[in-house]
């Protein structure tokens, strides 16, 4: 006796078997212990599947958390994309870059026009205003010239050493004359 296929039993249990097959399967299952047992297992499996709940709506907080984490992952991925460009360069490319830079510098040194040295900048003399301290007032000397004649002769000597400033007048007690010292 040929057993009923698992596909037929599955569809029979779900009432999805074509009408022309239903009677023959039912007849076989009633007579075959093995197929009857398998049909029981199929029904148990289908009942297990039918008990699975409908998914609830996705919790908003969970959706937000996952979205934030994905945004962070995207940011770091983009940063890594930039960074990964450098280590991915082979060593020879770094050497080539260095040699190229040196060659460019040498070429520029040879072919660039001489640079005129500018004259040193003229530093303007800064004349600071001289602050002349005020001359202390000299003690006023009073001179009494005995006579104009003696004074003009200029032969008389001063009795005491005195500094005579220009424009000063000096007299001695003995009537000596004076003249301002010449520079």
């Amino acid at each position, binding site marked *: 006796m040929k057993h009923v296929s698992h596909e037929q039993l599955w569809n029979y249990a779900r009432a999805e078997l074509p009408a022309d097959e239903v009677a023959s399967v039912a007849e076989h299952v009633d007579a075959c212990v093995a197929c009857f047992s398998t049909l029981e*297992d199929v029904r*148990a499996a289908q009942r297990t599947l039918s008990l*699975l709940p409908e998914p609830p709506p996705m*919790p908003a907080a969970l959706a937000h958390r996952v979205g934030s984490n*994905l945004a962070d992952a*995207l940011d770091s991925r983009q940063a890594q994309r930039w960074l990964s460009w450098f280590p991915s360069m082979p060593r020879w490319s770094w050497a080539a870059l260095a040699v190229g830079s040196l060659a460019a510098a040498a070429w520029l040194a040879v072919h660039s026009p001489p640079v005129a040295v500018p004259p040193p900048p003229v530093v303007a003399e800064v004349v600071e205003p001289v602050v002349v301290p005020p001359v202390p007032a000299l003690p006023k000397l009073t001179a009494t010239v005995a006579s104009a004649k003696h004074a003009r002769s200029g032969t008389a000597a001063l009795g005491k050493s005195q500094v005579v400033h220009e424009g000063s007048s000096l007299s001695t007690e003995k009537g000596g004359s004076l003249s301002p010292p010449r520079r």
Partner: protein
Amino acid sequence: MTARLSYGPMHSDLALLDASRVDPLRTLALQARDGESVAFTQLYERTREQAWRVLYRVVGHSPDLEDLLQEAYVQLMKALKGYRGDSKVTTFLHRVCVNVGLMHLRSKRRRPEETTDDVPDTESAPETSNPERAAEVKQAAVLVQQALATMSDDKATVFAYHDLLGLKPEEIADLVDAPVNTVRSRLNRARADFTVAVSKLKGRGP
């Protein structure tokens, strides 16, 4: 329709350009592929609910859902590098989400001590008023996840697409890049494996 023209790259690009005008998601995906982070953010905003539903169908109510969703979009970000705009973005997203979900179930099976199913997560827990019903639903979800984890990669993928997400064999053929008849036969074998796995897990099987 994004028919591949054999006249050269320019005609092919024009065909893709026309397709991107029709599908705004495709335009966003192409912009995101070219490094526009704003486009990727918008793509996430528009597709996140879909991705959430796919992952929830595959892994059930789990506190790992948030990490898995994030992982799915990181995978999408990487996968977009090879995106040429010739397939629907939702198709692309379904494939990534199912892969991430199945990988998670397999890794949980390999390291059962690290399971996080017992961790309460009130944020995304489905509301049920009947505790018995809630326990039954939870048990069913665990059974499906464990059964999926025991199945081979291609069978689990086809089973998830058809019996968890409700896709048609023609759509699955596009997703797994296989003929429709191959998908149908793979689906039948996957259902047989699933039945046996559930039976064993329930203690009924051989």
